[in-house]
């Protein structure tokens, strides 16, 4: 197995989504190829570091503000459906974007 072949399989290897035969071949390659061993380990660490990083946590204060805004907008939408002809109840902001997604 060449290093380029190992790299192609790296994602499936790290995710453990491959058949036993291919996995054994990759592990045999790792036994003697120090470069692939290092790339494999450091890629695994990259994933773990991002997963555990708590990057972009939602602060409690902002969370409360967002919740209130969402609930208010949902109530407005609900009342606009219940009382026909009351467009003023809809929030003024972003009404043009309220089309269904795709």
């Amino acid at each position, binding site marked *: 197995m060449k290093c380029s072949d190992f790299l192609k399989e790296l994602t499936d290897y790290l995710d453990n989504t491959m058949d036993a035969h291919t996995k054994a071949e990759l592990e045999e390659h790792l036994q003697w190829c120090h470069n692939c061993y*290092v790339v494999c380990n450091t890629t695994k660490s990259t994933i773990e570091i991002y997963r555990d990083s708590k990057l972009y946590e939602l602060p409690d204060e902002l969370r409360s503000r967002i919740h209130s805004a969402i609930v208010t907008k949902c109530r407005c939408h609900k009342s606009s459906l219940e009382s026909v002809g009351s467009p003023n109840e809809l929030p003024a902001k972003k009404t043009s974007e309220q089309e269904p*997604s795709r």
Partner: protein
Amino acid sequence: METIENKVAEPPSEESILVEAARSGDIGAFESLVRRYDRSVFRIAQHITQNREDAEDVVQDAFLKAYQNLGQFQGQSKFYTWLVRIAVNEALMRLRRRRPERTVSIDEDIKTDEDSMPREIADWSPNPEQLYTQAELKDLLGKTIQGLPPSFRTVFVLRDVEGLSTEETASALELSVPAVKSRLLRARLQLRERLNKYFKRRDGDTRP
């Protein structure tokens, strides 16, 4: 002995009960869904837009759009996967507005194999994240992922940070499974390469 006749239909999940209640107009039930997924939608939105105000708007708009379109949710995928699809579309739309000069698309693919080939092979320090304070680490991780094309960092955040399966990621992004795997591999390798300079073992680092 268990027979086919003895098998009963799986009870509806708590999530599907909440979705059904919200569909009938129960805003309290929808609020429970918001509480369940808002942190995740915010992280995804900020990873894609790289802008906190945009991320805040994406969370609001994605949940509102989900509420307005609950009638269209068929229940064939998980509610969360459906919600993520809406949030990703909203986030990409905001990114396009902010960068009209650049093509921003989830279909964007960078076709060179070289871009992900490891150039620097170096062992990292043991527990490399401990080389930095929490604030420094967040800063360098944020800057590093910002350098990736939007289509790569979107796949990475859904798959590796939020823990969606490859199939769920493909469904949320309307991509094929091979396309998700290809972007994920390159995203992982590019991030690894960029993190080398912060985490590689220094001279004199004698720890095992």
